């Protein structure tokens, strides 16, 4: 992920969207290191930000990070939990839709790398497959700040 960001950051926008924990110490199927590091379900946006900062620092990630809101609106719109990758074309249509979870992450990372390599080499975005869904209506999923 970081390697892709460093390689293609001048041509493509990358964002890591930090969502609710997958296996927090007090959550669903907690992992051992969540207990050791004291990673709990986020009770506030501040909790979420602090855990995101720890992730970036501990794994030396420099990719720009966004924080999903506490209503998990973006996570839900993208069905992204526990983790997932998407590539969005310049025209706003989805070019890569990974399967969610660790089983989908690695293959999607390879697909993303191929997509980016072709885009970088040819200067144009790879065509959508013939069986691609129609674009449909664009849905905006987060509330405006005054709500």
């Amino acid at each position, binding site marked *: 992920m970081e390697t892709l960001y460093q390689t293609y950051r001048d041509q493509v926008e*990358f964002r890591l969207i930090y969502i609710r924990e997958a296996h927090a110490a007090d959550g669903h199927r907690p992992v051992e290191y969540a207990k050791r590091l004291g990673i709990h379900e986020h009770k506030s946006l501040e909790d979420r930000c602090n855990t995101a900062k720890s992730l970036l620092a501990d794994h030396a990630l420099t990719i720009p990070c966004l924080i999903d809101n506490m209503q*998990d609106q973006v996570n839900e719109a993208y069905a992204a939990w526990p983790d997932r990758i998407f590539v969005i074309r310049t025209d706003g249509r989805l070019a890569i*839709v990974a399967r969610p979870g660790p089983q989908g992450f690695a293959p999607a990372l390879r697909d993303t790398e191929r997509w980016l390599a072709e885009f970088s080499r040819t200067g144009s975005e790879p065509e959508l497959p013939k069986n691609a869904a129609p674009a449909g209506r664009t849905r905006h999923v987060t509330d405006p700040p005054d709500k």
Partner: protein
Amino acid sequence: MKHVIYRVALVYSLWWLSCCAWGQTDRPAAPRRSMGNLQVGRAAPTFVLPTLEGDGEFDLRQVIGTRPVVLFFGSYT
């Protein structure tokens, strides 16, 4: 005979309810993993989210039309 059946049913119901209560915890419900309805070709849902640094917001609508976007969703755990 009917009384016996009623009593057995009552004891079983109480046992079942106590098991349910025992299983309750204050853990939040696990989100359901699903594919959602997003498919290749569909318009990506747009959003505005704050940056981690707290120095502004990212509005996907403002980026679409300029460059491709790669989104990685995840958490520490």
